[in-house]
């Protein structure tokens, strides 16, 4: 029942959950979860409310203890770290912080023992803002932005922190349909290989950022992701999107997708 760094994971595997159980105060809400995340994957975690999706994400980040099983991380993932886009908390909403300051705080892990950010971190901050199309907002106050813009800022921050993997907890919750589409596009863009555009200090990211996302939007998950982890009591599923669509739940949602495509 622990986090371990496993250097004998198969090549390309960043994270492996073996028989993972999660719960609160001695009561398990999830049992026997098995999944693998490889370099360049786009994994969507779907399932009903209260099925433990966000808890699993917190466990991966080390913010919540496992009640059973193991989470194995590759040494590479440990070294470069993970970016995290949390569900928004109301406490931040009146905070005096410029967009640049918020995005830059994603570079914190790179500081080590230095007190201040260097040129590489500043370049990375600029790159992240350019990628999410918020460069023109750099000096604006975070709290004055619209919900969609704030979400982009937090995604840029997570991007700075994402040495290898980015974890997104319901990134589209509360966004209007247009902002939602934007968000999906940008996440997909991050997931694509970026070999043609080497970033300062991120050459190891040649295969793109690995994405792990908690979402309620199953049609979009099926459309964008490579793998699905469906959580919910007895019907836990992990596999590729293709395999997911062959399961009863998957077929149900595949119907949804076709409906969406039709209109």
């Amino acid at each position, binding site marked *: 029942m622990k986090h371990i760094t496993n250097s004998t994971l198969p090549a390309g595997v960043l994270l492996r959950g073996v028989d993972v159980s999660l719960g609160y105060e001695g009561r398990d809400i999830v049992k026997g979860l098995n999944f693998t995340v490889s370099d360049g994957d786009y994994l969507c975690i779907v399932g009903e409310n209260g099925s433990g999706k966000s808890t699993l994400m917190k466990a991966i980040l080390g913010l919540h203890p496992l009640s059973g099983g193991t989470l194995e991380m590759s040494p590479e993932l440990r070294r470069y770290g993970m970016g995290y886009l949390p569900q928004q908390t109301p406490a931040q909403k009146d905070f005096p912080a*410029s967009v640049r300051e918020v995005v830059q*705080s994603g570079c914190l892990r790179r500081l080590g023992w230095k007190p201040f*950010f260097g040129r590489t971190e500043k370049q990375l901050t600029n790159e992240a803002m350019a990628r999410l199309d918020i460069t023109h907002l750099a000096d604006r106050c975070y709290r004055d932005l619209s919900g969609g813009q704030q979400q982009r800022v937090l995604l840029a921050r997570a991007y700075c922190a994402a040495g290898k993997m980015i974890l997104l907890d319901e990134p589209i919750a509360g966004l209007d349909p247009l902002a939602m589409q934007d968000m999906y596009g940008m996440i997909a863009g991050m997931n694509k290989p970026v070999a043609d555009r080497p970033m300062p200090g991120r050459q190891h990211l040649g295969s793109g950022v690995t994405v792990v996302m908690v979402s309620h939007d199953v049609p979009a998950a099926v459309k964008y992701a490579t793998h699905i982890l469906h959580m919910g009591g007895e019907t836990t599923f992990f596999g590729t999107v293709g395999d997911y669509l062959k399961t009863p739940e998957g077929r149900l949602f595949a119907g949804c997708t076709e409906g969406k495509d039709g209109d």
Partner: protein
Amino acid sequence: MTELIATLKTYFSYGFVRNALVAGVLISLCAGLLGVTLVLKRYSMIGDGLSHVAFGAMAVAAVVGWAPMAVALPVTVGSAVLLLLASERGKIKGDAAIAMLSAGALSVGYLLLNLFPSANTGKFSEETLFGSTSMLTLTGVDVLLCVLLAAAVLVFFIFFYHRIFAVTFDERFSTANGLRSQVYNFLIAAVSGVVIVLAMKLVGALLISALIIFPALSAMRLFRSFRSVMICSAAISVAGSVLGLLLSVLYGTPTGATVVVIHLVIFGVFSALKVVMKR
């Protein structure tokens, strides 16, 4: 005006006035920086509670006959850490814990002073509660201690600036990013304890939270990035305290109350500016 400057010149020739100014500037600088963090972390009331704890500790020290700072410093820093622990574990609701601790310490301190009265008990209460003239009676050792502690606090804020921003803005994200947020929360609590004990000299226990909170709130009226708020808060804090000190020396008013009223006026001016500038 020339008369005023001449009077000030005379005062500045006294060592105790210069001591008061040096200590006042350093203390306010620390208070201004700390205030931003406390306000944004929703810890404002902790400052108030801790100041009462410091008063209680100083009262005990006075009765027993120990050096007040030597007792107040560890007790206040310790209480700060305990308060944080209690509210984090959710055993007692944060604000209830603070109210309990602050009223408890205040009453124990005051009771002790009355049970074991000495010649200067009344003066002690006024000094430690309202900081009436204690700034003007600082010894060389006091000033040295002030300089050392203030330097430590400043180094903390400069060296950990980006980390303080990160844990204040989003603790969970910072933890997920490998920052030991808990350690920084404890450091912030400890620094609060130090600044509060120092600031007791300037404004006294009852007025400390004003000195810590007002400059931060004033700065947040007009500025919208963390760095500008930090810089502005520190500047307001120093300017307000120096002005308050000088006025209290010139007109013989109680230092603590004068300083806090100046900060209140600054807050009013900044709030008005906010309306005028529509920010």
